[in-house]
């Protein structure tokens, strides 16, 4: 069946306005948050109900057409990059909070619900949704599930996977399956745990049951300025060694402070080689004692200025610098790569030094912004695409940073996912058997390799069954890379 006939049949089934094939309209969806990969999909489906998703996936399964799910499209690894011969299923219009059960510490939401809106819905009852990716004002819960999103506060509270207890999933053969539920410890394999973070390769979530967390009684935020990242790193280690588990410990280096200052005038102490943002939350009695300890540790580590947020407005100001950092870097450099690697927290000083050396070697500037508490680095590799060779040099530095992470026993991605961008790095972190084992799960869910092919796995793999059937293997060399 050609794609026009396929689209026509789908229109008849779920409504003409749900199915896009006009090239100009399709272009809107050609990339996600990682905008230098662009692929125009053959068809876009704007799902408004689970039935729409089921009908589309079933049609894809029948015709062996690959499909890619997309939420708000804010992902930073190209996980929602469309397939040129496939269907992009957009879930952002499935945006109903189905059930709010504060007494059970649960909410049931559709996948297109914006992350922050779960918190907004729960706040009047004294609860919130803990995972808080920086994009939380626009990213969707469905995308969070696909990517196992983190955020600044996952140091204490964990990731999406620790806050999702149930999913309704449309599997790649178009069946609707319930994984997990309202209560914990559902009998059988933890397929919910395997699904969260599978980047759309195991199916599409159509309903998500999330855990709601009690709003803390107190939140206190400290900004500490240091002469160097080494000092700030030492302070971070000392806080952890003291047995304190802050809600967040964030670090910015001189270059990212400069960028943030220029962009949002966050008024960080002048001359800082690094700043730490440390946030403590919980019962007032606990926070008071720990806050004094953290302040003392920062002083001992050489902080030349500390600032305590007196109220919510001051707290927002401290955070504004950190949260604006990625965008702010755009002001000091025409182009940049956002890297996302993880190292053991204790390796921080060593790895930062090595990053500096690699950057110098290649004549590239790197601004460092990161979740210091859990060793999740976000180096921003700056370059000017208009200068011949700079993009290649930046790409080299970016790759070398990942090698540093692996060398130190870390990970190639802490929260942005593998997607299309890092699939080629997977063999540096995992053996062929490790990848093949992941693929066993893929084959159990999607033997025809139709769900988001070309993502996560470095090379197309077959499931070794159903001979004679096309496997829909996707070569992303077809993607235009800008």
């Amino acid at each position, binding site marked *: 069946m050609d794609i026009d006939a396929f689209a026509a049949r789908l229109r008849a089934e779920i409504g003409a306005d749900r199915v896009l094939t006009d090239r100009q309209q399709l272009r809107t969806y050609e990339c996600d948050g990682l905008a230098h990969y662009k692929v125009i999909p053959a068809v876009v489906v704007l799902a408004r109900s689970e039935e729409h998703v089921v009908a589309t996936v079933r049609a894809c399964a029948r015709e062996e057409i690959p499909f890619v799910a997309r939420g708000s499209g804010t992902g930073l690894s190209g996980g929602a990059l469309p397939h040129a011969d496939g269907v992009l299923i957009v879930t952002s219009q499935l945006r109903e909070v189905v059930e709010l059960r504060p007494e*059970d510490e649960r909410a049931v939401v559709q996948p297109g619900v914006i992350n922050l809106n779960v918190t907004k819905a729960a706040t009047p009852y004294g609860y919130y949704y803990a995972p808080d990716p920086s994009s939380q004002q626009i990213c969707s819960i469905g995308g969070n599930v696909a990517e196992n999103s983190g955020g600044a506060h996952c140091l204490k509270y964990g990731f999406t996977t620790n806050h999702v207890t149930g999913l309704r999933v449309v599997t790649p053969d178009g069946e609707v399956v319930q994984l997990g539920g309202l*209560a914990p410890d559902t009998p059988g394999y933890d397929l919910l745990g395997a699904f969260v973070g599978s980047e759309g390769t195991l199916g599409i979530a159509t309903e998500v049951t999330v855990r709601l967390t009690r709003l803390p009684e107190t939140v206190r935020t400290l900004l500490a300025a240091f002469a160097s990242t080494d000092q700030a790193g030492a302070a971070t280690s000392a806080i952890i060694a003291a047995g304190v588990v802050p809600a967040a410990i964030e670090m910015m280096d001189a270059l990212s402070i400069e960028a943030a200052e220029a962009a949002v005038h966050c008024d960080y102490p002048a001359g800082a080689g690094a700043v730490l943002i440390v946030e403590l939350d919980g019962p007032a009695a606990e926070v008071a004692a720990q806050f004094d300890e953290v302040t003392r540790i920062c002083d001992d580590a050489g902080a030349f200025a500390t600032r305590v947020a007196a109220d919510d407005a001051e707290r927002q100001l401290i955070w504004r610098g950190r949260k604006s950092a990625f965008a702010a870097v755009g002001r000091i450099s025409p182009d940049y790569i956002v890297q996302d690697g993880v190292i053991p927290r204790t390796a921080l000083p060593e790895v930062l030094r090595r990053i500096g050396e690699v950057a110098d070697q290649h004549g590239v500037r790197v601004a460092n912004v990161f*979740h210091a508490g859990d060793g999740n680095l976000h180096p921003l590799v700056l370059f000017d695409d208009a200068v011949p060779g700079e993009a290649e040099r930046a790409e080299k530095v970016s790759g070398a940073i990942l090698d540093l992470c692996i060398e130190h026993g870390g990970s190639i991605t*802490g929260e942005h996912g593998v997607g299309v961008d890092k699939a080629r790095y997977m063999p540096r972190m995992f053996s062929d058997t490790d990848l093949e084992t992941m693929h066993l799960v893929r084959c*159990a869910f999607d033997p025809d390799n139709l769900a988001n092919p070309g993502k996560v796995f470095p090379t197309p793999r077959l499931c070794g069954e159903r001979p004679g059937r096309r496997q829909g293997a996707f070569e992303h060399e077809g993607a235009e890379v800008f």
Partner: protein
Amino acid sequence: MPVLDDLAVAAGDDDVVGGVPARLVAAPASTEEAAALVAASAGLAVVIRGGGTKVQQGPPPRELDLIIDTRRLTGVVEHAAGDLITVVRAGTPMSELHALPAQQLALDAPPGATAGGTVAANAGGPRRLRYGTARDLLIGITVIRPDGLVTRAGGKVVKNVAGYDLGKLYTGSFGTLGLITECVFRLHPEPAATSFVRAYAAPGHAARILAAQVAPSALEVYAAPGADPEVAVLLEGTAAGVRERAATVAALLGGDVTAEPPPWWGVPPPGDLTLQLTGVLSQVPALVATAVGAGATVTGSAGAGVLHAGFDTGSGSAAGSGSAAGSGSAGSGPAARSGSAGCGDPHGRVELIRAAALRAGGHAVVRTAPPGLRDTLDMWGPVPGLALMRRVKERFDPAHRFAPGRFVGGI
């Protein structure tokens, strides 16, 4: 098969799983040896045993040739205190991990339990309210697949989304997908102070604690036929903070601050038939009431919505059935008061309790039951996603030789 000849010895009288005797027992001492053993045992039906604290749970294996004993796979490979992680071999006793210098693996486990067994059973205890279960604290894992290949997932850093989170799939898979040889865990600092609050109070009072700003590490209930129900709370933190929060909790519950937990804390309820019950938090009181009405003793987390119920079936085999209740201290203390309120056919009682759990949005899974009963009881109740689970099992263990029949739906 020289590896098998070298490592395996004839099974002894105790090498029995759910009444099914094994022929051979082998205890590999390294991941490499374990991989060679698994490869060499192709064609044999295998059950993995750690400390043996849970090996009698669940249905018996359909077949059993070889028990792989993990208790020589021991030792803390690495404790990176600054990174709050540890790498341990699967047979390492949990007690060692509860007492690392200034840090701990915050997973409650019965005496004798191993790290690998705790992961394989996704076990947890009262402190799961704050720290979660094995699924939340495991960050990396090494597994020997049924085909003998060594595979790893996750890593040594807490924050990591590279590839599928297979650690979660292995967690709670009860040895049906392969042999766990090494685990990497997230650790937590040893709290500076801890305190308990105990009260005679109905389970419904737990909601007051959840609504208050006291951040409990555990919130447990106890109820039994003919006994006054109890609520107990664990608080951890700074000395000053714990003192203040404990006083708040004591006032809310009308209870006493104590240094020690009640005797039923974290102990499986007595009885030769035990179940794990789950449900949404608001339905915990109703679930407890139904179970107690059916003659069961109930303990468990009112904060997490995970309870344990136990009753005697009167089949006369309680002492010898090797049930969880037969070990440890469950036979003493106030919990021993139950059992006499037994009422009617155990099938009916299980169904009654299960119906309440399903109404509460949860499940009721029979953990232990006397041999005669086990064959006719539905141990699991409804299992959403079972067809997909079968497909996963089929991919990992196409010969169905790892713990055959021990898991949901006969997997």
